[in-house]
C-alpha cells in the first residue's frame, strides 16, 4: 500500500477528484456493460419464448419452419 491511511488514499495527494472521477466512470461502465449483456440475453429469450407460444396457440407445429 502506497498510502499511510484511508484519508490519504481518498485524497490522492490533492488529485483525488480526478483519479476518482476516472475510476468511477470506468467501474460504472464495466457494471453497466456486463449487466446489459445479461439483460439483453434474458429479453431475447423471453421474446423467443413468447413467439413460440403464440405459434403453438395458432396451431402451428413447432417443428415446422416458417
Amino acid at each position, binding site marked *: 500500500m502506497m498510502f499511510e491511511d484511508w484519508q490519504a488514499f481518498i485524497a490522492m495527494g490533492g488529485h483525488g477528484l480526478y483519479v476518482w472521477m476516472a*475510476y468511477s466512470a470506468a467501474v460504472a461502465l464495466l457494471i453497466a456493460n456486463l449487466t446489459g449483456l445479461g439483460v439483453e440475453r434474458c429479453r431475447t429469450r423471453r421474446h423467443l419464448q413468447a413467439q413460440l407460444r403464440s405459434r403453438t396457440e395458432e396451431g402451428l407445429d413447432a417443428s415446422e419452419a*416458417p
Partner: protein
Amino acid sequence: MTFRQFWHRLGSPKWFYQMSGPWQSAFAILAVLLLVTGMAWGLAFAPPDYQQGNSFRIIYVHVPAAILAQSVYVALGAAGVLLLVWRMKMAQLVLENLVGFGAWMTALALFSGAVWGKPTWGTWWVFDGRTTSTLVLLFLYFGLYALRRAIPAREAAGRACALLAVVGVINIPVIKYSVEWWTTLHQGATFKLTEAPAMPASMWAPLLVNVVGAYCLFAANLVAKLRTAILRQERGAAWVREWAAGEGRP
C-alpha cells in the same frame, strides 16, 4: 480440425452458438478478475509518478480504454472486409452489434483523458493531434450507428456500414502516430513492441493486467452480443425453437 475447416465453421451462426457458450462466461469472469486486480493494484500499490504524483494512476483506466476504442474499430474494419468480399453472415452480426461497445470505450478514453489532462496539462481539452483524432473515432462510431438506422434494408445497411468501417480504419494509424507527427501535449506510447517500457515494472505490471483484462472484456462482449444476435436472426430455425422451448439455458 484444420484452419480452413475452423474458418468455415466460424461463418456458421449455429456452429458458433453451440461452441461459444463456455467462452462467454470464461471471458467475462476473466475480465472482471483482471480488471478488479489491475485497478486495485494501480490505485493503491503502484508507486506515484515523480512528476505527476497520483494523477498518473488514471493511466490504468485511460490506456486500456483507448486501446479497446481502437481495437474494436479495427475489428469492425476487418468485419467490413469479410462482409464486402466474402459476404460472411457472422461479419454482418459483428458490424451490427459491436458499435455501441466501441463508442462507450472511446467515450471513456476521452473522459479519462480530460480528467487526467486537467491536473497534468492544466486544461480539460486541447484540439491537438491525439485528442482530435480520438474524437474523430467517436464520430466514426456515431456515423456507423446512424448509418445502420438510416437504411431500412438490412443487407444494404450492412454493406454501407462495412464500407464506412473499412474507410475509417485510416484514422487508426493517425491516432497512433499523432504523438510523433505533431507537436502535442500528449505523452508518447507506454508500451512498444520493440523496446522495454521506460517505466519500472511496479508501474507497468498493473497496466498490463488491465490491458489483458480489457481484451477479455472485448471478447466477452463480442461472444455475448453475437450469441444474442444469432438467436434473433435464426429465430425461425428448428434448433433455436428447441432451445426456446427447452429451459432456454444461456
